């Protein structure tokens, strides 16, 4: 069966909003309030994240940014930094149109 392709947004504005949202919600997800998040921080080695916590973070970002994110082709191993995560969000935000 053909799968409908959802319209996706990919823009630098959304990437910056994603970075801001990650900086806002990630300390809470990690239970490390006060942590200052930088785009070059490594998600796994610096922040101790795993696939499950990454998915939880994406759910938080959906709420924060009022978007839905397609996670089917997420590759946690290839997505190493906070900046990579923001790129992913910007490239996989699904509009509800």
């Amino acid at each position, binding site marked *: 069966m053909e799968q409908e392709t959802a319209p996706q947004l990919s823009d630098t504005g959304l990437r910056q909003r994603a970075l801001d949202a990650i900086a806002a919600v990630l300390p809470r997800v990690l239970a490390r309030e006060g942590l200052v998040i930088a785009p070059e921080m490594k998600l796994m080695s610096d922040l101790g994240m795993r696939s499950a916590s990454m998915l*939880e973070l994406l759910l938080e970002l959906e709420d924060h940014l009022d978007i839905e994110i397609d996670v089917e082709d997420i590759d946690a191993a290839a997505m190493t930094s906070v900046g990579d995560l923001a790129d992913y969000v910007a490239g996989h935000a699904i509009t509800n149109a």
Partner: protein
Amino acid sequence: MTTLKAVACYLPDKRMPVEDVAGQLELTAMQVRLFRRYLGMSEIRLDLGGTPLDLLSAATARLGALRGLEHLVRYVLYARALPVVVPYPVNPVRDLCRSFGLDHAVSFTVSHQACASGLLAVDIAGRLLAEDGDPDALALVVTGEKAFTRDAQLVPGMSIFGEAAAACLVGSDGPADRVISYAVNVRGEFDGRLDEAPEMASRFEKEYPTSMAEAMTTAADQAGVSLGELSLILPHNVNALFWQRLCRRIGFPVGRVLLDNVPVAGHAFCADPFINYVTAMERGLLRSGDRYLIAAAGVGATFAAMVVEH
């Protein structure tokens, strides 16, 4: 040649939404959403008040092909993920044999490949029957477990276990689904508690899809087919997202992986592939001559795949 002569399954009526088990599993609201929205798990089945024997009996009672052939059953194998499921001296597999006229059969449990033990049990049954020499001899593989502790019911961020059971009549000859190949990829370095060893858990997470794909590719190679030639994959129900991502990785259409039971039954230990087989048969998804692959993975870790011709 190992054959699957008949398969039956039992799904308890009691449906438990993920929200209703969140308290006992200590899941946050966000983790519940994660299971529903990303991992595709909405509810599990529970046989409240039931015992392991109740589960096994319910599945075996549905195995109509067993009636009248009990005397041909040489072996009864109980495939399960957990090494200990009842207190001594309770022995559900012997009780099952007594209840179903199989008291003469040699019975034993297969458990050391966790949720992949179901495929191992089918392989062992086939090899025992091949040694037996009687083409009419049969083996019964049963599986079904209680999700009776938090550890037994949850792999955090990955899967929620429910209760269900299956019974599979295995033969060595005659018209039936023929097992063409069986490949197993044992990764003993992942033995241990994932929640207490974050570095190991991280490596396990990274290598899980690769190891599963390797077992599937090996089984397909041994069967002389490409993955693309397979009509269907009957998976373990670890979660839907894992299979969606694995399919993208190996270039297999996810529409040919039977994931329909993930949202409504959760991960039922070793029973998933058999339950999915029954669903495939009910829906007429397999035609004579079709080759399909059964896949399962168990913590510890084992990745197993079996190519079968319908």
